[in-house]
Structure formats: C-alpha cells, structure tokens
C-alpha cells in the first residue's frame, strides 16, 4: 500500500528549521539529553574561562579584584544569555511563532519601565535594590506580557502577525514611559541609565542582585524545561495538544509567568538586550532539530556562550574603535536585525495565511 510521495499541494510557511530526511535524528532518549547537557555545560565553562582570560593574559599586575570582577561579569553574562535564550525558545514554541522573543514582544521594555521606576524612585524609598529592582521589573514584564497577549489574541488564538504588531505597540508605549521616566531621574545618573537602556553588562553587579536574578532564571528555566514536551505537542495544534493531555490554558499561563520572571531578571541585570532570544534558539534548531526538550537545554547554554563572547568582543573591540565600553545590546541588535529580516523573508513568508 505504497503511495506516490507527492508534496502536499499547499506550500507550508516552514515555521521551523527543517531537517532533511536523511539526517533525521534518532528518538530522543535520556542518555542523549544528559550527554548534550554535559557537553554544552563543559563548552560553557570553557568559554567562560577563555573570555575571562582574553586581554589580560600575560599582564603581570593583575590583582585578585580584577580577576573576580571579570569572572563575575562572565557569570552575569551567562545568566542573562541563558535566561533570554530559554525565554525566546519557550515563546516561539508556545505561540508557534518563529519571531516571538522577549524583546520583540515588548516584555523586555516592560521590565525596563519597572527598573527605571525603581531608579527614579530610588531617592524616595529605602528598599534595597536587590529586592525592589527585580520585583518592579517583573511587574513591568508581566503587565507587558498581558497587554501583548490580550491585544493579539482573538478567541484564544494568536495570529503571528498580530502578535508582532502588538509587540511593536507595547514597545512604543513602554519607550514613551521610559522617556518620561528620564525626566525624573537625577541628572547625574542619566548617563548610567542611557547605557543601561542600550543593554549593557555593568562593571560590578552587587552579589545580592546577582543571586536573586540567578535564582529567578534558574527557577524559570526549570519550569520551562518541565513543560518542554508540551511545546512539541502544541505544534500539532491546540485541539490535538489538549486531547493529548496538555492543559493548554495552564501552559500559556505558566510559560508567560516563567518568561516574565526570566526576562525581568535579565533586564534587571543588564538592561533590555535584544534579539538574543531570537537568534540563539533558531541556531539551536538548525543544528539540533526542533525538539523543545533538547532545545531547552541547548538554547540557554548556547545563549550564555553567545553573550559571554559578545561581551568579550565589546570589551576587546571597544578600545580599538575609541570607546572604552560598547554596550553589548548594540552588538546583539546589529546581529539580530539582519537575522530578523532573514527569518521574515524565508521562514515566515506564508505563516500568516
């Protein structure tokens, strides 16, 4: 009972990276998952060590403090990169939309409004920054998640183009709020804020803030990993997923919650770094296939590696072009813009139809 293997007549708007039949991977097993985790974890540590050493190796007058601050900055880069990449992958899976990402959907700018609010109000209240910054960032991120989703959805279904458009709207609105917030910031701190708003890893992050944000990313990632099989099934459509045992509404709520927490943590640490959550999951899919279970391990570690290298590039290239510090958000956006257009022109062509 063999059939002619004609292509389906409708040209599908290939939403995800495509593997050819000949290279189809074997069924995902626990040991393969563990193997890749170990390999990527090893690579992440290696890159972290290498990036810490770049530019200072061979110098004799390096103090312990400089080593510590460099290592800490790599740790921050790792946490931010991992959080944004995992959040991007989860959003792309949940919304079946290859362009979904915390920055594009306005979640990062929402968190940014929260952080700015904290900065503007810093003079008036006594709450410590490690507590107030992530909480305010989370409040802003959640409000933006909710706004984007409510604007884009119609009867619980989210059209890919509406989603991007509502992201643009929320981004614009949040941008205006941030500009307004600028007016209330102490003049001496406006430069700090301007750098932060471009997406920059600070020279020194308080350990308390790093601890809280690291924990947020870790917990959010664990939640997303636990739901990663559901994103696979969701690719078959809401009805099929629900009849397979996925609680679709609960999955949306939990995913947006985890993404909000992770984005808030990343933004509280390093400002709104864009497009990382878009680029890294796509590269992972191209290399490792569409399985979200493997992706949820590969993408965060890949995101950590990506941001550590990008940050090191910024620190190394900066002095060459005459700037002591290039905000890393500029580099990710310079890579991400063309990548976005590439996705729009190739993978997304007919997805909205």
């Amino acid at each position, binding site marked *: 009972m*063999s059939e002619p293997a004609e292509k389906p007549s409708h040209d599908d*708007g290939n939403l995800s990276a495509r593997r050819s039949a000949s290279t189809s991977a074997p069924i995902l097993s626990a040991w393969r998952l563990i193997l890749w985790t170990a390999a990527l974890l090893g690579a992440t540590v290696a890159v972290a060590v290498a990036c810490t050493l770049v530019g200072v190796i061979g110098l004799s007058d390096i103090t312990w403090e400089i080593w510590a601050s460099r290592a800490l900055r790599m740790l921050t880069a790792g946490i931010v990169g991992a959080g944004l990449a995992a959040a991007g992958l989860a959003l792309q899976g949940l919304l079946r939309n290859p362009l979904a990402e915390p920055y594009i959907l306005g979640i990062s700018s929402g968190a940014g409004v929260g952080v700015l609010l904290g900065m503007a109000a810093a003079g008036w209240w006594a709450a410590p920054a490690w507590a107030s910054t992530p909480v305010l960032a989370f409040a802003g991120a959640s409000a933006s998640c909710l706004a984007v989703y409510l604007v884009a959805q119609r009867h619980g279904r989210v059209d890919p183009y509406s989603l991007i458009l509502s992201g643009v709207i929320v981004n614009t609105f949040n941008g205006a709020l941030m500009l307004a917030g600028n007016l209330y910031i102490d003049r001496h701190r406006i430069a700090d804020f301007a750098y932060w708003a471009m997406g920059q890893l600070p020279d020194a992050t308080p350990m308390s803030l790093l601890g809280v944000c690291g924990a947020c990313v870790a917990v959010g990632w664990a939640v997303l990993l636990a739901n990663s099989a559901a994103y696979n099934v969701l690719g078959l459509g809401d009805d099929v997923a*629900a*009849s*397979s045992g996925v609680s679709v509404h609960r999955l949306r709520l939990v995913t947006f919650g985890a993404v909000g927490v992770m984005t808030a943590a990343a933004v509280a640490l390093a400002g709104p770094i864009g497009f990382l959550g878009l680029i890294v999951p796509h590269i992972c899919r191209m290399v490792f296939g569409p399985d979200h*279970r493997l992706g949820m391990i590969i993408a965060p570690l890949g995101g950590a590696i990506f941001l550590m290298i990008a940050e090191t590039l910024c620190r190394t290239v900066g002095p060459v072009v005459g700037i002591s510090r290039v905000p890393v958000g500029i580099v990710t956006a310079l890579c991400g813009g063309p990548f976005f257009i590439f996705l729009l022109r190739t993978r997304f062509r007919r997805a909205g139809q």
Partner: protein
Amino acid sequence: MTPEVDILQATDIAFAYRPDEPVLRGVSLSAAPGRFTCLLGSNGSGKTTLLRCLMGQIEPASGAIRLDGKLLRDYRPRELARMLAYVPQLPASSLAFSAAEIVLMGRYAHTGPLGLAGPGDVAVAREAMKMTDTLDFADRMLDELSGGEAQRVMIARALAQQPSVILLDEPTSHLDIRHQLNIYQMMRRLAHDWPMAVVCVSHDVNLAARIADDLVLMRRGLVVAAGSPADVIRQDLLTQTYDVPVDLIPTPGDDVPMVRAK
C-alpha cells in the same frame, strides 16, 4: 457475542457560542467499543461543535457527557488523553518532526514531565504505525509526506494514546477518493479489531453509509435520526437533514443505496 456497553454517552447536550443562537439543542449520542459511528449533517448542523463537546474542549450549557461512566468534566487532561484521542481535519503543516516523533507525541499522557519515551512507549508507537501502515516512512518529516500519508500518521499518533474512543473531524475532506476509502476502511477495522469506539464527523454521506456501523444524522443542532445505515438512509430523513430533495439509487450487491441530491 457479549453485549456492548456504551463507553461514551452524551445526554441532551445543549450549547451556544452566543446566547441567542443555539448550536446544539438537546443532542443525545452514544458510542460503543467495536462500532464505527459517522456524524452526518449539513454545514452548520452542529457536528463539529458536538465533537468538541465530546472531546471536552467546550463545556455544554446543559446535559451530561459520560465517558466510561464518569462525567467528562471530572477527568483531568492527562487521564482523559489515556481514554480518548482526536484526529484533526488537517495534519499540522510546517513541522520539522519525523513521523515517528509525531507518533511518539501520542505518548505524552503516558510519560513523565519530559515525555521521554521508554522501550514500552516505542513498542506502542511502532505497533500503532504498523496498524496504520506508516512504518515505511517513520523517518520522513511530516511535511514531506502526502496528505493521505500525513493523515495516517496523525491516526497512528492518536492510537499511540491507547484510547478507548477516537474522535475524528472530517479526516478525509482534503483527500482523493482512494485515500478517503483507505482511511474509512482503516478506522472501521481499528474500531472492530482494537476494539474501540470511533466517532467520525463526515461530509460524505455515501462513503459513511457504505462503511460505518452507525450513522447519526444532524440538522440545526438536533439529531434527525440515528441507527444502522440500512435504517437511516431513507429519502425522507436525508431530505430533511440536508434541506434538499434527494434520490436513492439502488446499488447492486449492496444493502445501502446511493444518495444523490436531486
């Protein structure tokens, strides 16, 4: 032969998307293991809405749906998925998963949080693919398959849930007549051999009449008639169901005549 017990029982189901436009107005339906039931009716008669109620996707405004004696709404999603599976009208396009991976997704409700397939799950999936004749292209991507092949993969995925009931929503509406027949015969065989209750929304009255064990005719949210094809394929009932005069053309060697709109 042992008496068949209805595993799925819907009693007096009413549903409306908008308060003034009832879609279902008191529908009762039952399905027993070993029976292939087709839901027929004109567009907008409420077939698909009824199917969505039976899936537990929408909650009827009144009436009760029982699955294996227990109210449908008392089932938890994973528990329900081990009892009842669904095959959509169109297989999802643009998925870069292989056919085997898609079928293994049917094991979601049987596996842990990461949905990692154990040897038992792989065996179940393999058996489901054997029954649907899809093993030959287990490694091919879903979007590289023809419509008929992809739909068989979706049926294999539903079988991998090891359900007692399978619901299908016009599974052959985009297929040619050979593959329509192929899918219907396969569903009938599965219903009888598994055995399980198969309920299929159908747009093809002749195909359904030829192959189904039971037919349910629906019109404007009500059941016009239900029973064996020989009982239900009557000029008056079909004219009423489809709001168009029909002819019945006797087909030699077949109990059920062919239906044609006048």
